[in-house]
């Protein structure tokens, strides 16, 4: 008998797979003929990417507490390092790894 958690994880994995696969395949199923997609669909596809990523950045900071110690200082410092490094080097892995290490050091040693 799978536990409730295993059932949830299997279903969540299935949902992610099904939605992603449907997205990848829809265009072949619907527009496999000569029909071109409606302009509205093309428009949404063009502009929704940056909007979603920006909202996910905000989502990642949802548990930050700007009014209570440590006042969001570890998050701010790590995000700034990430941004500056990325402006300077444009190397995604470098920006991600160094800012994450900085954040880990800050929350483990200074904010508890």
């Amino acid at each position, binding site marked *: 008998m799978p536990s409730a958690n295993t059932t949830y994880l299997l279903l969540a994995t299935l949902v992610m797979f099904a939605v992603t696969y449907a*997205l990848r395949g829809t265009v*072949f199923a619907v527009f496999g003929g000569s029909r071109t997609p409606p302009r509205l669909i093309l*428009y949404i*596809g063009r502009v929704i990417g*940056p909007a979603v990523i920006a909202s996910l950045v905000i989502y990642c900071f949802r548990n930050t507490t700007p009014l209570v110690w440590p006042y969001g200082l570890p998050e701010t410092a790590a995000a700034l390092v990430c941004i500056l490094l990325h402006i300077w080097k444009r190397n995604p892995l470098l920006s991600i790894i160094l800012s994450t290490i900085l954040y*880990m050091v800050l929350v483990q040693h200074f904010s508890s």
Partner: protein
Amino acid sequence: MLRFTKKVALASFKASIPVLLGYLTMGAAAGILLTSQTGLGAFWAFLTSATSVSGALQFMAVDMFANHTPLLTVALVTLSINIRYALYGLPLIERWKGIPILLKLYLILSLTDETFALETENKYPPGEDSLTYCFLISLFDHIYWVTGVVAGSLAGGLLNFNTKGIDFAMTALFIVILMDQLQEKQTRIPAGIGGICAVIGLLIYPANMLVPSLLLILAAILLFRRRLEVANA
């Protein structure tokens, strides 16, 4: 039909080397995160990465698994992160017409950003078969991604240090993706809309901010369509 030769195998492998480096490291980061944050091991790393084959989603999956995010929200998040895939097929429809159905289903399953880029570039060696070249690139990239995530998960289980704060890797990933997108001017207004909608979503429904945020985004880009299309033209 597929025609495997040494030449086409070598050419597709060579083309995929940059993806190899990127997927192994990003996959490993996602795998370490999965195991250190949720305690889930290599089985789940394999299952999620082999089926969804999607970078940003793999990171969000850690967050959603840890929080037991409701399945409907999981569907909505997946839809929003991956909606761009709905357009990737467009330049490939004609080329993939009439190929064996199983092959087509696999090529669709493994169509990531990077694989799409290499397949539309389609630099197969002269005299070789373009479809075989594309299939091998898909297969190689898929293997790199799954290997990276599973290896990261195994390493995450062995790591014996304090991993508190390692989830910032996801924050940093999204910051980096956003900064790369912002280099193109026409992404700036949509990104601004996304940020504002997310803040409103967080204020009105902090328990599950993603649902109101994403619905607001959709409403806003439909509402401002005329202005955004003018700005893009």
